[in-house]
């Protein structure tokens, strides 16, 4: 069952998720080492593989605001984290859809580090507090990209259709 490993507030920026000084590193295979690198303890846990795949970061509104840097998404995807937040900034949301980082939009979501969650398609249940939060589903156009396995396979499919 997914567990909350980090709790953050509103307006978490891409500079916090992936500081600009590491932007010369671009390849998805290399970015995960710098995820949350200014939060030294959490970054150390990630690098030491102390954080299991599917672990949850709980956040407030406007998660991922700021830059379009895709490293912010690929760094979190590299650790297979799930972000459950009250809301997401547009470019970060789109980048996550494109790269397959799992985001759950649950307005009003509240949880503490250590809480266990049930992540269902239409609701998030915080088992530790007993509270549940309705999930805002992705719009169908974005869901189609997720279902295709990301934007790269989705674009390939369109190219093949055009050729045919």
């Amino acid at each position: 069952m997914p567990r909350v490993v980090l709790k953050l507030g509103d307006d978490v920026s891409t500079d916090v998720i992936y500081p600009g000084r590491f932007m010369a590193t671009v390849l998805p295979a290399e970015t995960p080492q710098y995820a949350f690198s200014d939060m030294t303890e959490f970054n150390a846990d990630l690098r030491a593989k102390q954080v299991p795949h599917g672990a949850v970061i709980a956040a407030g509104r406007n998660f991922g605001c700021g830059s379009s840097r895709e490293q912010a998404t690929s760094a979190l995807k590299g650790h297979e984290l799930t972000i459950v937040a009250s809301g997401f900034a547009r470019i970060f949301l789109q980048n996550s859809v494109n790269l397959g980082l799992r985001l759950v939009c649950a307005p009003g979501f509240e949880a503490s580090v250590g809480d266990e969650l049930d992540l269902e398609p239409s609701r998030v249940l915080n088992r530790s507090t007993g509270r549940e939060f309705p999930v805002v589903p992705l719009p169908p156009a974005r869901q189609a990209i997720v279902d295709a396995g990301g934007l790269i396979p989705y674009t390939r499919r369109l190219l093949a259709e055009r050729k045919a």
Partner: protein
Amino acid sequence: MGMTVVEKILARASGRESVKAGDVLEPRVDLAMSHENAALVISQFHEILKGTGLPERPWDPSRIAIIFDHRVPAESSKTATNHKKVRQFVAANGITRFHDVRGDTGGICHQILPERGYVLPGQVIVGTDSHTTSHGALGAFAFGIGATEMASVWALGAALNVEVPATIRVEVKGRLPRHVGPKDLILHLIGRLTAQGANFRVIEFHGDTIRRMPTSGRLTLCNMAVEAGATSGIVPADDETMRYLSDEAGVTGLVEPVAPDDDAVYVDTIRVTASKLEPLVACPHTVDNVKPVSAVAGTLVDQVVIGSCTNGRLDDLATAAKIVKGKTVAPWTRMLVFPASGRIYAEALTKGYLAAFVNAGAVVMNAGCGPCLGVHEGALGDGEVALSTTNRNFQGRMGNPNSQVYLCSPAVAAASALAGAITDPRKGAR
């Protein structure tokens, strides 16, 4: 039902009679801009085409612009190698709208695009940079995307699954007081809207204050629209746009402005009285933490930065140079000036602005992003305070999570550099 400017642009780019907020479209793209992160776009583009049997060529090289600005000249061998990889791709694909590390044609992407005439009213522009919103200043619909999405645009020539954003109408009336500029206006709006108040929306600017504002100021407004979460900002093209295009950007062809319908539908209307505005400062660590300069006046500053895609244009440098001319920057303060493009650098040199800065003790740097994103020159020490005309003050933005960044206009920055502390330019320094 009437349409907003962005709705009209998207309808045209999607081959439809009309569209409304919420529709999902695949608009063709007129211009696809990247900076250093073209290195990542290239590798994702390669991934898309691998094994498809299709040639690895973008749909239309003449519609791609690549500008080196974030880390110029290269600050590390890693960056230099990325630059090299991009140069090779540019040469192999005949991309002509390429701006390398040069003192004449180089600069920040959000200045190069308008000043070279790459942006026209009514276009759809995507860029792998969140401040691509800037180009709405010329009446285009311009928004930021990620590198993988750009690779998809390179392959298809269209942006996929674009949801038509709802539009917020902003009406600004009256004259801006002395020492109050476009930066104060947009900080005021961000303070009112909050950092996410315009998420998934477009801000359309109207009113006599906007009509009188030069394109440089409109670029400042649209540049920072994203700091309220907006997909883009847009100023419907008018006489000033036409003047800028023909006189400054060298555009000779026919230009068709796009205006909103009288009965266009807006989600919200925000009214601002320009004459009531005052110099403002965005305090650490969020851009919407906006206060009157008087509330933080006297705060000592270690570094003052004037420049960036927000406020590194000739008008901005003129304002700052006028204030510092014949005076001296406080001994405990470092003042860094970085013009937004090589062309602006040269003009500021001719007009004597750069001499005014240097003689006051400022360091004038090459055109580019400079200290704005904390990877290049001008990093901050632990506990230091910076006052900057840039657009973001997130924790760690200038390269050090243990520092503080305040954002302001060129007038506030220049007056504060002289005093060595945050200063209201209306009161003057010393």
